[in-house]
């Protein structure tokens, strides 16, 4: 979900689904509605305009849900630190489970983040 991002991370996420990296090998598939989703992938600096919508989307996802913050902006504001309309990263808006740093992170790094997240899911069997 694009919480005020420069699209660099978004196109790398989409690239992670295309033939060369193919996230579907691990069963990760684009899901059209938050009702069907388990993982909310967030990019961007969560600017004030997008903050409350980000929270509303998060609430619509059924438990057990996880948040994957992708890109330096989502992890901690990135290059836009100090801009008047840029937040300081997703973790002071949503509880984030996995960070993938990089501006933008390579598709392999995103896949690695997804696999680590799967590892975390296996860790606590019962829904959190």
């Amino acid at each position, binding site marked *: 979900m694009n919480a005020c991002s420069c699209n660099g991370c978004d196109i790398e996420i989409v690239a992670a689904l295309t033939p060369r990296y193919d996230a*579907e*090998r*691990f*069963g990760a598939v684009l899901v*059209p*509605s938050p*009702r069907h989703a388990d993982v909310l992938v967030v990019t961007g600096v969560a600017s004030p305009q997008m903050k409350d919508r980000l929270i509303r989307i998060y609430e619509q996802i*059924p438990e*057990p849900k996880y948040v994957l913050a992708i890109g330096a902006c989502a992890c901690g504001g990135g290059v836009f630190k100090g801009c008047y309309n840029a937040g300081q990263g997703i973790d002071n808006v949503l509880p984030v489970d996995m960070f993938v740093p990089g501006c933008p992170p390579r598709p392999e790094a995103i896949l690695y983040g997804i696999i680590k997240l799967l590892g975390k899911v296996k860790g606590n069997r019962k*829904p959190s």
Partner: protein
Amino acid sequence: MLSEVVEALVFPGFLFTLGLGFLFEWIERKIGAHMQGRIGPLVTGPHGILQPIADFLKLLYKEEIVPTFGDVTIYKIGPVLYFLAPILGMLFVPVMGTRAVATFDLDVLFVIFLLAFSALMVVILSFASESSYTIVASGRLVLQYVSYEIPLVIAVITAAVFSGALSLAGVVQTQSNVWNVVYMPFSFIVYIVALMAELEKPPFDIPSAKTEIVAGWLTEFSGRSLAFLKLTKEVSLIFGGGLAVALFLGGPLGPVPADPLLASVAYTVYFLAKLLAVGLLIFILRTAMARLMIAQVADLFWKILTPLALAQLAFVILLRGV
């Protein structure tokens, strides 16, 4: 009596259909991926074969959000009814031999009713979950349903008329030497296209268009009901495919050894092979097409497929009559 129950519950009935449903979903994802140059599910189980089952189980224990403003009762029981229709239908498709598990004389009509019932159940479900997306989706569903239902029924009737029997077992028996598809290729094509429309496979996946109206009528469902709805889509592919095999491709018939036990095994193998063929045909078409606009779908069905089906019916009646 016991063998009846076992047959209904285990072999050509409930569990068999479920297993086939998961298998075909895996085949579809694999073929779709390979045609697009991807690999598709790989990690869960050998070559990702357990991926559909893993998705189903995951959805089972997820939290289910029930929309308050919708019609909650229908929202709850709807998926179960929708799930039962194709399962029930599968009992009428002859798999083991020429007789299906539960065949009675007019079961072709009953099967058509089941097809119609599952389509209308979808419309009711999408009305039950009142969100702006699902209302739009239900509008489109009705429009698409109206366009594909007539050609579908005509195609099925053509096969029944030609074989002169109103029960699937009867239709299969008459095809012992020559399959129906030889006489009526057009109604086979019409049937397959209408089936793809009913299953909302691209190019007809407008009601649940991923890129346009979020998830269409599926938007509000989550957890258990979503698990059943997704499974039903696959199972109704099996049911529709099984019907196509029974009506046009001569059901499980084929050169068969004498001994009855071996014969039923051979019948099943033929049935599965033909079902796989129909499935592959649909999957390949599904990956190679873009999504049509709803108006174009209606055009396609009303202006091209319905007259084609009627012409085929007339031709068959002439053939039969003479």
